[in-house]
């Protein structure tokens, strides 16, 4: 763990603080969320504006190696979420295209029953991922330049393995 996350173990709880200027809040939520089925997770902010994360065991007291490993795993997950957050933003178009292709393929064309049951008065289709929305509709808040960005995977430049 580097200087951006420091861990304290006390009263059977692992507490550490995270610099929010390095990790987006969505990454922090992503990491916290995967811990809530095995730990009690609490987030707070200290005076310096760092996010303080507390992890306490759900079942019985946890020993120090367990708390250490939770803190370590949280750090790994945080980094992974932060990176994925960035990749998803860069590759959103490709990811959405493939997802909608796969889901549309799995569902097949609308049947006659689907068509006759279609409710023209209803609100927009339930679409939690925004797959059915046009690019402009979904990202209208973004600047045109950002919205037109080429997906990173198609960038004609070398990347490191």
């Amino acid at each position, binding site marked *: 763990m580097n200087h951006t996350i420091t861990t304290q173990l006390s009263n059977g709880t692992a507490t550490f603080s995270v610099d929010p200027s390095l990790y987006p809040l969505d990454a922090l939520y992503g990491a916290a969320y995967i811990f809530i089925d095995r730990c*009690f997770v609490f*987030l707070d*902010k200290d005076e310096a504006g760092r996010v303080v994360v507390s992890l306490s065991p759900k079942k019985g007291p946890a020993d120090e190696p367990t708390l250490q490993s939770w803190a370590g795993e949280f750090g790994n997950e945080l980094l992974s979420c932060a990176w994925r957050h960035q990749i998803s933003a860069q590759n959103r178009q490709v990811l959405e295209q493939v997802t909608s292709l796969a889901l549309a393929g799995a569902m097949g064309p609308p049947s006659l029953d689907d068509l006759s049951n279609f409710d023209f008065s209803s609100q927009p289709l339930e679409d939690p991922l925004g797959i059915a929305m046009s690019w402009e509709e979904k990202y209208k808040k973004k600047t045109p330049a950002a919205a037109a960005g080429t997906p990173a995977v198609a960038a004609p430049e070398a990347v490191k393995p």
Partner: protein
Amino acid sequence: MTRLAFHKSLYAGKAVDEAVKLFATHATCELSETEAAWVVQLSAPDARKELRVARELGNFALGLTVQSRQEAA
């Protein structure tokens, strides 16, 4: 009495409300607000139960906050 302060920049107020409602049968909860936090004062018949309810309530508030952000995305 346990005091939980949910930082407003980290927890959605609605999520804290929902979590409090869910645990209302297990503890007495009083809601208030400071400039920075949604505050829940919580008391249960015994200390162990109070700690457990406080922690569960914290998890629910966090889970519901994350879900509400996903839905809004």
